[in-house]
């Protein structure tokens, strides 16, 4: 039952990405060059709904419907977070593809995204292989290992 809702949640997310046209690298690049600021509305709409639910759900519900507890995403303020974000941005500006649209875009028949996906997988491997360190294992998300 839990996995069914994971799938449904992903599908809502993917439908939203397709509807917002964020699955098109050209739209992302046009936003980054200030030709059309629409992606700010995508981000804003998503954040408002998420903030509301992240705030209210743990206060109104004892626990999630199909799991024992609510998770958290405590991000850390350090060089990795900011340096990684800077590198991520350089790549995002080069290709107009970020992880969600890279995956969802396949559903709209955008097959060249497979090239971007291969690049993302390779980048994630290099990060883990040579730049993972031990900090990753002791990170705050360790508590979040939900099966």
């Amino acid at each position, binding site marked *: 039952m*839990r996995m069914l*809702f*994971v*799938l449904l*949640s*992903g*599908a809502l*997310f*993917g439908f939203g*990405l397709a*509807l917002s*046209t964020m699955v098109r*690298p*050209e739209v992302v690049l046009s936003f980054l060059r200030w030709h*059309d600021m*629409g992606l700010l509305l*995508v*981000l*804003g*709409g*998503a954040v*408002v709904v*998420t*903030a509301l639910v992240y705030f209210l*759900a743990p206060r109104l519900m004892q626990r999630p419907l199909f799991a024992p507890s609510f998770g*958290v*995403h*405590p*991000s*850390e303020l350090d060089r990795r*977070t900011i*340096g990684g*974000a800077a590198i*991520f*941005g*350089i*790549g*995002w*500006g*080069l*290709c107009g*593809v970020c992880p*969600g649209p*890279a995956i969802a875009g396949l*559903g*709209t*028949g955008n*097959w*060249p995204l497979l090239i*971007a996906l291969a*690049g*993302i997988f390779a*980048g*994630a491997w290099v*990060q*883990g292989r040579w730049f993972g360190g031990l900090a990753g*294992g002791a*990170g705050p998300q360790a508590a*979040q*290992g939900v099966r």
Partner: protein
Amino acid sequence: MIESLFPLGIAHYLAGGLLIGAGVSLLFVTTGLIGGISTVFSSTWSYLSRRPFFQQERLVGSRGWRLVYAAGLIAGALAFVLAGGPAFVTEVPWWQLALGGFLVGFGARLSNGCTSGHGICGLGSLQVPSLLAVLTFLVTAMISARFVLAIGGA
């Protein structure tokens, strides 16, 4: 003013954003999980690599649902096309997709979040480090997107 900022209109952007938020919210309310995307690119390596980094509990323990979540993303976008939405094939050159993708994968995993993890989930839980990460990648992406145009890219 509105038309110069949003020449293609605002409705589909807003509706899409609200649906994305609904997806992240549904995931949280039903499973308690935080629906960032980029971790799947590390956790999936745990099926193939025995290295300690990829065998961390937080990756091995979450790799199953993350793949299902990724499958949902594709299914949702496919549903949009089946419902009459336009299919689309990008014309961004392959080298931009490959090099940009590599930096996206490396940077997102180093930063422990991307547009969804820091942008939606991090901002949605009012995390200051995520806000700084978002501002950082917006600035570098805007510079990079103009730079690639200047050197003859798409």
